[in-house]
């Protein structure tokens, strides 16, 4: 396969890295969300969660498909999803954290959706048209994800004492994993400079606004600034990812080369 054309003013390495990061976020969060299938607290939630997972897997196909093109080694989205080991995954740590109770799942989703929404909104204006096109489609889906997760966080935060307690605990548990969304390295700087992506830190104020407004309405207390975990974006993950992959990749690993 010929090496695909990429944005003329940025390095292939930077573009590939970005596409893996955004694609792996969708893949791994989609996996986590899909674990709820049939086990959620209400039928409407089963439907909504399957729908969210489905959107995220669809986005994965697009982002990793483009990543494979940019890489130019003939790897498909499936090859990238199913045949890389953990250290080659580039998702942030937040999305691989366990589902735990439904409150933790929802809070993880809300914290992620708010960022994902802003990121995709900006990516619609990417100087790389292929990225802008995918972002356009994904943005519509994720706008809906955000409406939904924000609404539920508000209702449960301002629900019973018990639902409030669980949502506050969920918020505190996940909070130290939100800082990674806004980290930038040389790849990010290069792509932001060329207008391919927004600078990660430029999304922070908007994110804090969405979060703060929702938490206020939810009567939840925003955690104090503190230590933030990182590592996923450079392939240093939590111990959870290995288990996700051993399950996800079983068939492709056990029956190499088979088509399904």
């Amino acid at each position, binding site marked *: 396969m010929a090496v695909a054309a990429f944005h003329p003013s940025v390095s292939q390495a930077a573009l590939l890295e970005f596409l893996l990061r955004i694609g792996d976020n969708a893949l791994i969060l989609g996996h986590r969300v899909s674990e709820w*299938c049939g086990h959620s*607290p209400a039928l409407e939630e089963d439907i909504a969660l399957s729908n969210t997972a489905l959107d995220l897997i669809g986005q994965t196909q697009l982002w990793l498909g483009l990543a494979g093109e940019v890489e130019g080694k003939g790897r498909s989205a499936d090859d990238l999803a199913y045949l890389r080991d953990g250290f080659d995954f580039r998702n942030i740590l937040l999305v691989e954290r366990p589902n735990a109770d439904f*409150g933790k799942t929802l809070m993880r989703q809300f914290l992620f959706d708010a960022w994902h929404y802003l990121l995709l909104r900006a990516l619609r204006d990417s100087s790389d048209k292929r990225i802008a096109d995918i972002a356009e489609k994904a943005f519509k889906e994720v706008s809906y994800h955000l409406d939904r997760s924000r609404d539920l966080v508000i*209702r449960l935060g301002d*629900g*019973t004492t018990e*639902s409030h307690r669980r949502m506050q605990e969920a918020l505190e548990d996940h909070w130290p994993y939100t800082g990674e969304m806004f980290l930038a390295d040389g790849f990010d700087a290069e792509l932001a400079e060329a207008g391919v992506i927004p600078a990660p830190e430029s999304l922070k104020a908007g994110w804090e606004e969405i979060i703060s407004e929702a938490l206020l309405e939810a009567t939840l207390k925003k955690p104090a600034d503190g230590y933030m975990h990182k590592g996923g974006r450079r392939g240093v993950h939590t111990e959870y990812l290995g288990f996700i992959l051993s399950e996800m990749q079983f068939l492709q690993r056990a029956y190499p080369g088979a*088509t*399904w």
Partner: protein
Amino acid sequence: MDQQERAFQERIDAGQKIEPKEWMPEGYRKTLVRQISQHAHSEIVGQLPEGNWITRAPTLERKAILLAKVQDEAGHGLYLYCAAETLGISRDQMYEQLHSGKAKYSSIFNYPTLTWADIGTVGWLVDGAAIMNQVPLQRCSYGPYARAMVRICKEESFHQRQGYDALMRMVKGTPAQKAMVQDALNRWWWPALMMFGPSDDASVHSAQSMAWKIKQNSNDELRQKFVDQTVPQAKYLGLTIPDPDLKWNEEKGGYDFGEPDWEEFFNVIAGNGPCNAERLNARKKAWEDGAWFRDGLSAHAEKAAARRASSKIAAE
């Protein structure tokens, strides 16, 4: 039969639909509640055997297809619970009957999905048998149920084709993949035949349900139709139906086939299927673990209503 009942039966005989607020015999209502809620429960419990493979689907495309399918099933559950609710039972009451074991769900979901080929096979055979059962229900005398069935049947046909397509891909693949499909067929064939229920002689509610047009065909009729439709599909896949007695009967224009193991059938109904405990426990756990969530939403709704009321008063 009193006059009201006679008039009711005449409407049914004339092919009219019965709608929620109209008078109906208590037996009609009860039969429908039992059947529709059992059907709804089957859709919900049916998420579990297929959900079991979502995280292990072999490609992103197959994962997306399976997610969409399971989502559709939850949606079917939703229509059906709504249809049942028009008969004066709440969804929570129906759940309680499911969790207490009073209400049943289709026994087929008490079998495990052991390989990826099972997912295709469930689509092909289980959805195939379900459609066979459900197509006549589109003409059921109870309006809300009939209309729900129209939508459900359309989606189920799509699922069946997707299942068959997944198996087609596998049988054209490696010998290991083809063996996996044959193994799945071996395990699912007889349970699929049993989905039509015991032979009509042994079936309790059939005659009255037929008169009420809740049921339109006999179990044996539908089973025969299913076999006749499925055997050529299996041949096309290059698979062997695990029934030594299966052979074409020119005279009747259909296949003769062996008798399912009804002892197994009644055992599974009695709770001794491979996964009865797992399925029911999974649903009960989902319900119990989710109580705080549902309570939280209710509490918020009450607060919000109170706020709206008081701001309305303040505005006046």
